[in-house]
């Protein structure tokens, strides 16, 4: 009986203690419960006191519980020394911010172009000197200034550079990036030579890619695919065998022939003149017309005279600029584009790969091709004269995929050699953009 009574008393005491407090009594330092209660009761007033950024319950120097008040700076007034008998300790912490989203102020670099001046004019083929300063408030002077032209694409990187530009009205942009990734840029507009040409015109050297070209002994025209280079750095124009060697495409007799820009078909007199010379035929894959043979490429390279050939399709004619120097393998459903002499920029889709196809080279001359890429479009993707156009991906990367060489009459179906087979045959690489 006595035992029961004692237990009941203990339970009653505990129960009363339980009911009396808002939260279960925690273990801990003396006065902790009292401090928590004081903080909770006075928080609304404390947190709205000017200069207070937060409160907490903590330990005072004597080990007893205190209420801590955090402030923006020291000397925040109107704070009591005790609340409900609990000591108040004030601590100047400054602003409390969430660590994740703490922005640091950063200014983008300020780029100033000192050369060339806005509206400057240059003769065709002139060297242009570019200079700019790039000052960053946080990072100081930046030397990696990227220069681009709206016509010739990426030019070079450096505070001072010199380049020859193609003809046209260029918007020259100098840009620099600071260590935080903020970009600053400046632009000037300059004119080089006379206004822009058509793909069939003679272009001032260095000529763009994607324009008319041909053999000096044939009144015909095809397209310059792109610029390629060999292991020792020699530069070549890439096109088809039947463009650079139209009179002996089954043999090797036209090695050494002069190639022209434009092709003679597009030159008013249709006769060769020294001013049309671009370079000479170095090598080409002969086309085998035997029914027992299959061909994989219809490709030729011509060594360029110094300063003859650039690396970009004319932006002024809607070209995609520079192709990528990295190629891509063809795949069904890939979106592709090409820039060529006859139909300029056109877009299509790859609908067939590894194609085996009979291709006519003359009314009674056919050759088998295998491993080919089939491109389809709702309109004319190509027309005669687009032979040799480079097929690239229809995206900002513009990765080369194929070398165009044939198509059906209305141009809705086009055949292209896989570009890697072409590059491997000549052991060359494409001179194109390296980014993206």
């Amino acid at each position, binding site marked *: 009986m006595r035992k029961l009574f004692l237990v009941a008393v203990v339970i009653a005491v505990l129960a009363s203690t339980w009911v009396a407090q808002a939260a279960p009594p925690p273990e801990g330092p003396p006065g902790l419960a009292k401090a928590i209660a004081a903080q909770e009761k006075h928080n609304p007033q404390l947190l709205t006191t000017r200069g207070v950024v937060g409160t907490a319950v903590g330990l005072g120097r004597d080990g007893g519980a205190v209420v801590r008040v955090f402030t923006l700076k020291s000397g925040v007034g109107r704070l009591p020394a005790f609340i409900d008998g609990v000591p108040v300790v004030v601590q100047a912490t400054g602003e409390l911010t969430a660590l994740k989203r703490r922005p640091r102020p950063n200014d983008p670099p300020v780029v100033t172009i000192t050369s060339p001046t806005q509206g400057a004019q240059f003769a065709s083929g002139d060297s242009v000197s570019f200079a700019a300063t790039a000052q960053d408030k946080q990072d100081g002077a930046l030397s990696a200034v990227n220069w681009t032209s709206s016509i010739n694409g990426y030019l070079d990187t450096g505070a001072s550079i010199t380049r020859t530009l193609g003809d046209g009205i260029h918007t020259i942009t100098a840009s620099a990036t600071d260590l935080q990734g903020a970009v600053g840029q400046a632009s000037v507009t300059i004119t080089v030579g006379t206004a822009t040409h058509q793909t069939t015109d003679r272009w001032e050297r260095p000529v763009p890619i994607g324009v008319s070209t041909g053999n000096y002994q044939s009144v*015909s*025209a*095809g397209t310059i695919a792109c610029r390629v280079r060999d292991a020792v750095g020699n530069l070549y124009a890439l096109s*088809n065998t*039947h*463009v650079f060697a*139209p009179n002996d495409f089954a043999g090797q007799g036209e090695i050494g022939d002069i190639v022209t820009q434009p*092709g003679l*078909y597009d030159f008013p007199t249709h006769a060769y003149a020294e001013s049309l010379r671009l370079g000479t035929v170095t090598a080409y894959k002969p086309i085998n017309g035997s029914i027992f043979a299959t061909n994989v490429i*219809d490709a030729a390279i011509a060594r360029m005279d110094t300063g003859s050939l650039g690396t970009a399709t004319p932006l002024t004619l809607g070209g995609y600029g520079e192709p990528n120097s990295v190629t891509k393998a063809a795949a*069904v*459903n890939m979106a592709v584009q090409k820039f060529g*002499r*006859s139909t300029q920029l056109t877009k299509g889709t790859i*609908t*067939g*790969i*590894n*194609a*085996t*196809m*009979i*291709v*006519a*080279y003359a009314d009674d001359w056919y050759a*088998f091709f295998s491993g*080919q890429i*089939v491109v389809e479009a709702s309109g004319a993707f*190509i*027309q*005669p*004269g*687009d*032979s040799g156009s480079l097929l690239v991906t229809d995206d900002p990367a513009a990765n080369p995929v194929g070398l*165009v*060489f*044939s*198509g*059906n*009459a*209305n141009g809705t*179906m086009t*055949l292209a050699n896989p570009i890697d087979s072409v590059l491997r045959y000549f052991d060359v690489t494409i001179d194109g953009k390296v980014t993206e």
Partner: protein
Amino acid sequence: MSPRIPNETIRKVLERHVQRVVSLPGVIGVAEGEIDGRPCVTVYVAEKTAAVVGQIPSDLEGWPVVVRESGEFRALTG
């Protein structure tokens, strides 16, 4: 119907049949294509007449065959 899809399989099948199919009168060529998202063999013909289509198989070892009228392909000199 057709086996699971790695393109090597359609490539190997095509290899076995390409000579024969391309030799059929009116056939210009063949390629690996796609129909309704699945690989198929596309046969290109100069003219899609009943006679031409009649001799082309509707499938090659399980891979569907699709006939397209392309017309002749010519080298594109201007």
